[in-house]
Structure formats: C-alpha cells, structure tokens
C-alpha cells in the first residue's frame, strides 16, 4: 500500500450542538464528540476505525461524507480541502465518496425496484438512460453476484445479505474512489457476513476502491483491513497496520478490547476482566488521557492530568499513552 494519499484527515474535532447559538446564550460549552483525530487513507486501501459505541466512529464517517460540519480541523481528499458541508461539494466529489449504511432496510427505498435504486446514481452522475443504463445495472448486479432478474424485484423480496449487496451495487454505480462503510456486516449472519467480506475484498482488488470501514467486530477488521485506528471517546488511542495493532505492544485500551473478544474455542477461559459494571466515567476529564479512569495499566496521576504523547512504535504504528512503548511491550509479552 504505497499508493498516494486519498483521504487526509487532520486534527478533526466535531461538536454536536455547537455554533447554533451565540456564545453568550450557550449555558455550557458543548464538549466535542470527536477530538484531534488525524489519519490518512491511501488509494485502494482499507482503514478500519474500531471502538465501542459512542466512540465517534460513525461521526467521523459522517463528517468525511460532509453530513456533519467539523468544529475544527481539516479533511482533504486528493489534496483538495473538502471541509465543507455537503451542499457546497461538487457533484463529482459526491460521486467519488460514497456512503454504505449499516441497515439496508432503512437505506433502500422499499417502494423502488432494484433497477431504480441502482439506476438513480447512473442517471444522476453519468446521465445514463435507456439500454445503456439497463446494461450497466446488469453489470453492477453481476459485480455483486446477483442475477439480472433481481432488477425487477423490490427490496422486501430480498434477504438481508442480498439487500446489502444491492446497497453495495448502488454505491459502486457512482464509481467511487472511497466508500465509507458503516457497520455494513454487523447485522448479518456469520455465513452471509463472510460472503460480503469476500465481495468487498474482490471489488477492492478489481476496482482499487479505498474503504473507510467502521466496525466494532475486531475479528472482521483483522481479516479485512490493511490499517486500523482504535478510538476511545472520540480520540484515537492507537493507529497502525492490522499486524501492528493486533500484536503487542498494544495501547492498554486495545489490549482490553482484544481480551474481551470471546473466541470460538472452549479451551480458552472467559475473557479477563471484572464482572462489575464499569464505573461511570467522567467525560469532562479534558486534561488527561480519556481512558485513564478505566485503564488497568494506569501509572498514576499523570494519566489524569496530562495528555499522553503520541509514541512512535514504527514508521506506521503509533500509540497514545504515557507508558513508554518498551515497557508496554514487556508487560504485554503474552499473546492475546
């Protein structure tokens, strides 16, 4: 993956409910949901963003799509600043960044036939009509391994996996360079999920599409993504290649996530950890590490009072933690 940078996100900050009111009218300054998030996606690569619910994964994807305006930071696409709301983006930019949603039941119009659903972007972006459009729809259905007879059907006549294929075909119709995939396999059965993941890989190999892949299933991410960013409460904790993130040294939060995944192997014990509910965390701890209150490897008050440094582990791997990387490595020298 030495391709050129396609998407470059710099110090992104997103605050819900910000800037609608004049400052004097704001009771309390709203806290940002996403803070200081920087990452890049190269052409043809898959970057996965993982984290628990509320970690800001979807918010970031929505900002990249232009559906949300960041309060700080910059989003660049092919070296062009695109930190503007969607209505100020050009039609060609719309075409190049496509969003695939989690739930095809909600994202596909139930009253339109599959041909209309896939045909719409063909008309809108390429002005296709008649037999040219029909041919293209058939090609797209074939690309997602659906029979051309599906064109006449309605979404309700399809299974969940087939509907997600239609959603993918609809995004493909625009011939995007970047697809924002928001939990697109999490609602599917494992067997169906496996076929969709295969399809994503195949399409990437054929068409060189880059994916920003939002997911909470670490095993799926490990299988699909080239690089992984781990988010906690709106901030990146660790970023690196899949290999790097999934082997030690880890950020203590990554370590906790990995230890929590139950593997289909009855010889392994229940995932490590406490059975008690996590103590409610203080969202307002602005100064220190956001993970400090839950961190099993907390070193002291420094974690709560000072922002951790970004430590470079390798040219592509960085960890946001006070604990020196060498020390993390010795602590974690047991495989997950």
């Amino acid at each position, binding site marked *: 993956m030495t391709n050129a940078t396609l998407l470059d996100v710099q110090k992104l900050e997103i605050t819900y409910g910000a800037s609608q009111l004049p400052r004097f009218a704001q009771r309390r300054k709203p806290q940002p949901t996403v803070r200081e998030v920087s990452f890049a996606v190269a052409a043809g690569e898959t970057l996965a963003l993982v984290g*628990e*619910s509320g970690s800001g994964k979807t918010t970031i994807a929505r900002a990249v799509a232009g559906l949300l305006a960041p309060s700080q930071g910059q989003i660049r696409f092919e070296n062009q600043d695109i930190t503007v709301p969607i209505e100020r983006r050009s039609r060609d930019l719309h075409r190049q960044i496509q969003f695939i949603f989690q739930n095809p039941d909600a994202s596909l119009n139930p009253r339109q036939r599959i041909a209309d659903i896939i045909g719409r972007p063909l008309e809108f972006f390429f002005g296709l009509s008649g037999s040219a459009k029909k041919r293209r729809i058939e090609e797209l259905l074939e690309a997602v391994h659906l029979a051309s007879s599906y064109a006449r059907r309605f979404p309700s006549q399809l*299974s*969940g*996996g*087939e509907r997600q294929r239609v959603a993918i075909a609809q995004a493909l119709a625009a011939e995007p360079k970047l697809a924002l995939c928001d939990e697109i396999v999490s609602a599917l*059965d*494992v*067997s*169906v*999920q*496996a*076929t969709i*993941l*295969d399809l994503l890989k195949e399409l990437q190999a054929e068409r060189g599409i880059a994916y920003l892949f939002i997911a*909470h*299933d*670490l*095993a*799926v991410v*490990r*299988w699909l993504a080239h690089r992984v960013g781990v988010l906690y409460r709106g901030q990146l904790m660790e970023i690196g290649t*899949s290999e790097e993130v*999934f082997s030690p040294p880890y950020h203590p939060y990554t370590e*906790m*996530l*990995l*230890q*929590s*995944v*139950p*593997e*289909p*192997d*009855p*010889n*392994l014990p*229940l*995932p*490590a*950890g*406490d*059975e*008690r*509910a*996590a*103590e*409610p965390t203080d969202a307002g701890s602005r100064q220190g590490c956001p993970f400090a209150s839950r961190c099993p490897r907390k070193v002291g008050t420094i974690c709560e009072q000072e922002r951790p440094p970004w430590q470079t582990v390798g040219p592509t791997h960085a960890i946001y933690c006070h604990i020196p990387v060498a020390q993390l490595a010795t602590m974690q020298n047991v495989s*997950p």
Partner: protein
Amino acid sequence: MSDNTAKQANAVVQVEALTVDFWERQGWLNVVNRVSFNIYPGETLGLAGESGCGKSTTGYALFGYRRPGSRFREGAIYFEGRDLLTQSETELRAIRGDQICLVPQNPATTLTPSMRVGQQVVEALEAHHICSGREADERTIDLFAQVGLPQPKAIAKRYPFQLSGGQQQRVVVAMALAGNPKLVVMDEPTTALDVTTQARILKLLARLQAERGLSALYITHNLGVMAQVADRVAVMYAGELVEVAPTAEFFRNPLHPYTRGLIAAVPRLSAPNESKVKLRGLLRREELPQGCRFAPRCPFAQSECFTQPQPLITVGQDHQVACWLWQSVAEKQGVAE
C-alpha cells in the same frame, strides 16, 4: 410424548418433538420441526443457528408463548411434570417470570421508558406476590447489588435512558431473578452490547447461575460466546436440530456439514489469514426438500439426502447428528469447498 419419558430423567425441562407453524399468506409454514432436547439441573444448553432458523421460537415456547398467528402443531414441553403447551394462560402466568424467566436481547425495548427502573423491579416482585411495599424496595436494592450495579440506591431512582446499555441489561437480569427461577431463557442477552461490556455481563451471568444452580437455554448466533457459556451446544437449521454435542466435542469434532460451515465462517482474531470457507447459498424456506433441509446447500449431498428425512442419530458420548453421511464427512479434513 409418552409419560414415561417425562418421568424418566431428572431434567428440568424436556422438549419433545416440538413443532411450530406460522401462518403465512399461503398457509401454514413450518418453522420448528420435531425438536427434542432436555436441559438438566445447573446446565446451560446453547442453541445456535442463523437468523430465521427457529431458535428464538423454540426458546419462547419454553414459556408456552405462542406468537399470534402461530400454532403448536405437535409435541410437548414438560416442566415440573406438567406439559406447558396444554396449560391455561392463568397457569402459565404463574410459571412465567417466576419459575421460568427470560433475559431478552435488547434491554432498551424491554424496560418501560417512562418508569424508574427500581419501580419496574418492585412491580415484578409484587406481580409474583413475592413481597411488596418497603420489603420490595429493599429486595430491589439487594437484587441491583447482586447484579453488580454500582450505587444500587441511586440507580433504582433513574429512568432507563439514564443508564448505559450494560446497566440496563443488569436491571433486566435483576428483574428476571426477582422470582425464584429454575430455568432462564437467554435470547442473545449480550448481542446489543460492546465487547468489553459483554465480557462483564457473561461473567456476571456465570456467577449468578452457579450461585443459584440455575439451568439455562442460551440462544446466540455468536459461536465465540457459545464456546464460553454453554455446557452443550445444539444447532438448528431451518427449524430442525442438526447437531447436539458437549461444547468441547462440538468445537473439536463438528460432524454435520452445516455445523462445519458455520464454525468455519466465524472470523477469528487468532487466525486472521485463514481463508474463510463459506456456506454456499441461502436458506430458502419455500424450497425445502422432503429429506434433509440442508441438502440444497450441502456440498456432500447425494440424491437420497433430498428424499430421506434425517433424524438425530447418536454417534458418540452425548453427541448426536442428523446426517447419515457423518462418517464420510468426518473423514474429509477441513470443511467443504
């Protein structure tokens, strides 16, 4: 069906040839077909399968719950010597929530949004005539402490929306334990939760079950969770049981072609680059053959498979499989291509 079988074992619950149909536009559609299993004291039986395989319908039948537009065509469910499928609604109500309880998937839709969570547990206690008034309040606080909620008194005064998903699920577990259950049906109780929260809830459930000697039916499609919680695993396909085995045996030596495909399809952290051999095709309920329902998707299928129904046959210690070709399947290393 016979009374003998009902008495023979010390099983907490015995399901015999349970058959459930749903009314669809054209007529009755079979969704659970002659499913039989027992759950023994203190045991957790895991029930796995893809969405639509009938696992939740089977689980809910343990309450005698019949979805509107469905019928129990055949079978019996013996609990404490009584067939739940022939009990009246009043009799069932005394059992449900008291002796057999449910932990459903989504705590957000289980809890009443406009009622303080403490009050909801108090209501459950009063409905089952366990206690009332101040005693019920105290019992509720005690239950909240048992399920590991921090500051149980303060939590009791909150509304569901003021709690996190994991905390909500703990309230639901507390409510389920309000009675004196012998059997708990858990329908994907951690699917809606984050992995870190899931790990905590799984530990909690394991402890509560051990403390109270509870038996459980644990429904999940997540085989990772299954490996951790179940003593035995039962797999359903298109409404039928295709394999039942003790958990260790199940993962070490799966025999049914469907089970093998299912296990192979699970993405794993530990083996990321292993190619995922997939199950071919999809379950199509309209096109089920007379014989094995998995035959249209089975890589080993022979012509007999489509015509001969496949009952569960015992092939090892507590290991049953519904496939007459299991030996030749077992010989094939790895899974079907």
